[in-house]
């Protein structure tokens, strides 16, 4: 695969390094000449100087034959324009933008960016998962269709204890994907009963996440 990465900060550098290790063809575009020199010494000459939002830079970088363009600068407006120019001028199949302000994630999707990665939301999620005894956790968003993967820990106060999957009044766009019970992972069947201590992994439409939370846990 040919991947163009725009922005040689920490994220851009490690991304380029990992992709190179997996034998992909990588070009890293960076505006700051000091960083270009610094990272070229470390990565081999795969870093070029330029403004990744400028069409001429992307043209020289061979954006027309790129499989993926990834914009990971610290400025959301730059990441947006890089992806839009890559998409509209060079018809790049997949554009990925780092989103610094989580508020912009929705907007970027509306404006044609294929994939958004919100570092703030990721960090919040990871910290959230590290805080013990939380009964309901949002694990991740799925790229398509506004779905999320969530995890619920069933306490003795949960309204679904003793019910089978069939008897639970699950919202229409929710599915229970797995149940972790001790060391065992159960693929749920309609007659699987929920027990105290079960960890339920479910896929849900974002609009029904709070309904599912109410069903599975008591706050």
């Amino acid at each position: 695969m040919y991947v163009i990465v725009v922005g040689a900060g920490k994220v851009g550098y490690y991304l380029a390094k990992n992709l190179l290790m997996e034998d992909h063809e990588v070009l890293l575009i960076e505006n700051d000449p000091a960083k270009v020199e610094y990272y070229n010494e470390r990565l081999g000459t795969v870093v070029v100087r330029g403004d990744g939002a400028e069409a001429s830079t992307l043209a020289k970088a061979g954006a027309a034959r790129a499989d993926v363009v990834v914009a990971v600068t610290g400025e959301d407006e730059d990441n947006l324009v890089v992806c839009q120019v890559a998409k509209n001028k060079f018809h790049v199949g997949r554009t990925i933008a780092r989103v610094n302000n989580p508020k912009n994630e929705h907007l970027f999707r509306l404006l044609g960016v294929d994939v958004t990665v919100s570092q703030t939301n990721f960090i919040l999620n990871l910290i959230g998962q590290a805080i013990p005894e939380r009964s309901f956790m949002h694990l991740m968003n799925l790229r398509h269709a506004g779905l999320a993967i969530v995890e619920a820990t069933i306490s003795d106060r949960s309204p679904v204890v003793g019910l089978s999957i069939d008897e639970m009044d699950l919202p229409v766009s929710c599915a229970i994907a797995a149940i972790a019970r001790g060391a065992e992972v159960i693929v749920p069947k309609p007659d699987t009963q929920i027990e105290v201590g079960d960890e339920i992994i479910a896929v849900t439409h974002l609009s029904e996440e709070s309904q599912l939370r109410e069903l599975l846990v008591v706050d």
Partner: protein
Amino acid sequence: MNVVIMGCGRVGARVAVLLDEAGHQVTMIDRLSASFERLPKEFGGNTVLGTGIDEDVLRMAGIDHVDVFIATTNADNRNIMGAQVARTIFNVPHCIVRLYDPVRADAYREMGLDTICPTTTISAMIMDKIATYGGR
């Protein structure tokens, strides 16, 4: 008309004063409060401190009832993003964007933004002037 201008630099401030004098309701957005010093004491419009690519800042500037959004910061990409937020999220009917880069100006004009490129305009004016000069 209700107008929001993002970027209170020389161009933004000048347009704001002209619109204000013509009786329009103008709100200025800038990240630096010092930029508002470019506006004269008589300026009758409002000022909002913040970045115009932030939905909440735009809401504070009354973007919901705006007829025209003008982006004149010195950063092309910020102007592009601000105008797209105004158009896509808030359905502002007219968005004027100043872009220094002619290629980006053409690209985003094709995508429906009303772009003005001073680089192209001023170069053309200089060429026109030179065309009128005779040699020595």
